[in-house]
């Protein structure tokens, strides 16, 4: 274990290194660029490669290729670049390629305010590409968590053969805090499973009972077909309903089957709470302080912070607190609110958007929730 003092962006890069990153492709974009800059210096000495591609489309396709060549691979970007990655995110889903995509959220739409924060991309992370799928997504609220959840994202990607998203934001990216780094052996690192017998003729998309097919990486004689078309277990294109249903259901079910591994939340003061404040990411820092302030005023406020945004563990969220009144506070026009409202359908759930280019202050949080108190 090693203590340091650093930023959220560097913590993401360090998390990737701890997880065993071997290939990074990216394109400069504020506020994520330090991740690539830092890795450009550090990764080569660990036997890895960093390449600055011609755009974000090239970046995500390159990491998908690298992952199929056996490397743990990552890219990082911000809103405009994340939008460009949409189509290839679908490629990673259907070819079941472990990759980690970091989106350091900034204010949008379009170019927006490149240097300032936002939480507007939470549904984009859920629904980025066309088609049916479910991509695990993590939202850190501190430098330490940027590190921890990046490792978790790699583990999730490798375990489930899926893309995984780390949804940071401009505040976390440039926030400096103490960070504890793990040495090898001090933290669980998961590696993808590969076919056991290299000589046997394998069905590259035939799943094991956990719904995950072992990954026949290229260069080992598996005669793999990495297929973007809807395919059968052989990897051959199939327009048949039976094959389509089997594949599409499995792509989502393999994620949901491991929701207990993927999902994590942080609950505080929930035991006696009459009011529950729900938040995530950087905004949750101020929501937490607002909850403390309400408690000082005698209001029994609870605090629920989502560390995993997708998939949401509905049962765990429902059982987190008995409060009858729930307020969802997020730095956007109200997005996760729709799911929280559905999950707590028998209770009063309100949305308190706090649109702020900087980290909203606890006072601002108290102002936006005031109408519902």
């Amino acid at each position, binding site marked *: 274990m090693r203590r340091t003092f650093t930023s959220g962006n560097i913590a993401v890069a360090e998390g990737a290194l701890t997880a065993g990153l*071997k*290939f990074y*492709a990216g394109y400069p974009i504020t506020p994520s660029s330090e991740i690539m800059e830092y890795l450009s210096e550090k990764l*080569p*000495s660990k036997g890895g*490669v960093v*390449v600055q*591609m*011609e*755009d974000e*489309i*090239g*970046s995500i*396709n*390159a*990491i*998908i*290729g*690298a*992952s*199929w*060549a*056996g*490397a743990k*691979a990552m890219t990082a970007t911000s809103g405009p670049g994340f939008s460009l990655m949409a*189509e*290839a995110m*679908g*490629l990673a889903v259907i070819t079941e390629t472990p990759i980690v995509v970091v989106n350091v959220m900034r204010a949008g739409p379009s170019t927006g305010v490149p240097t300032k924060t936002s939480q507007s991309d939470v549904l984009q992370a859920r629904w980025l590409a066309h088609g049916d799928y479910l991509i695990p997504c993590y939202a850190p609220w501190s430098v330490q968590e940027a590190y921890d959840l990046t490792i978790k994202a790699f583990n999730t990607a490798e375990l489930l053969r899926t893309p995984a998203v780390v949804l940071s934001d401009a505040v976390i990216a440039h926030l400096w805090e103490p960070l504890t780094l793990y040495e090898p052996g001090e933290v669980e690192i998961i590696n993808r499973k590969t076919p056991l017998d290299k000589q046997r003729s394998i069905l590259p998309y035939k799943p094991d009972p956990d719904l995950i097919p072992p990954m026949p990486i*290229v*260069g*080992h*004689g*598996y*005669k*793999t*077909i*990495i*297929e*973007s*078309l809807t395919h059968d277990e052989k990897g*051959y*294109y199939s327009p048949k309903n039976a094959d389509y249903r089997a594949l599409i259901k499995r792509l989502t079910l393999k994620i949901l089957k491991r929701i207990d591994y993927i999902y994590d939340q942080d609950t505080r003061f929930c035991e006696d709470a009459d009011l529950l404040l729900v938040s995530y990411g950087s905004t949750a820092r101020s929501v937490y302080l607002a909850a403390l302030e309400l408690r000082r005023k005698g209001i029994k406020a609870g605090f629920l912070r989502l560390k995993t945004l997708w998939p949401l563990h509905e049962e765990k969220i429902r059982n987190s607190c008995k409060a009858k009144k729930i307020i969802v506070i997020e730095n956007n026009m109200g997005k996760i609110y729709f799911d929280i409202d559905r999950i707590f359908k028998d209770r009063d759930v309100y949305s308190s958007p706090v649109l702020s280019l900087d980290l909203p202050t606890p006072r601002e949080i108290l102002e936006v929730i005031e109408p519902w108190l």
Partner: protein
Amino acid sequence: MAVATFLHPLDKHLRLDRIPTLYCPGCGLGIGLAAMLRALDKRIEEGTIEPDKVLWIGGIGCSARMVFYVNYDAAHVIHGRSIPFATGVVLANPNIKAIVVGGDGDIAGIGGNHLLHAARRNIDLIVVMFTNFVYAMTGGQVAPTTPRGVKTTTTPYGNPEYPMNVIKLVSSLNANYVARTSITTPHYIEQYFYKALGMKGFRFIEVISTCPEVYGRHIGLRNPVEMYIELKKRVKYKPRPSIEEAEIDWNEGIVIGEFIERNNPSYLEIIKGELSEV
């Protein structure tokens, strides 16, 4: 009566359970693929290429689909992105021989930016681009290579745009090998591809192909044999053609040959050298 099994010498390179291909009668792609496989077969026989290390990569289009007929590791990825996918593969595992196959729409149209930068980097890939002057799989829309004036399904009044000279474009960058051949000269496809397989850095081969079913309909050459003969008449081999001669002119003729042959350090060599200093 005994059943005789006739094996084609290239059968071992194909996924026979996927044959016949989806290619239309008279399509030039089969000639192109067979010539490439003969070259690859030769490399494997002489031991200069290990078949398990070969990866075929294609995006979207008729030509790109070649990758799923060959009995090798193969990636059939999204439209225009075969080159960055292949870039990631070879950077993560430099032992992989990456062969990118695609049409002019996939490689030079939607994937044009990646083509430029891969050539500029001199990244260790072979790109074989089949030019049929049209978007064939989607039904005959105008392509970046369609000559001026040709009526396509999206240029019903004639193509108003000037076509792209991909040979000139790639030659202007840092590619180690730039050649053009035609499905009417399969021996040159075989020869150039064989040579490219033994080189390093970015290698680009354009293969002029016939698409009687779609492009032939646009230019009044619907008959495959007729289209083949018309293309053959126009193709002119030159031992050392200049870049200026790469202009494609249906009336003046189409020059084939090796336009660029360099021995510049490849991307993999350069980063390997730099990394040894880290």
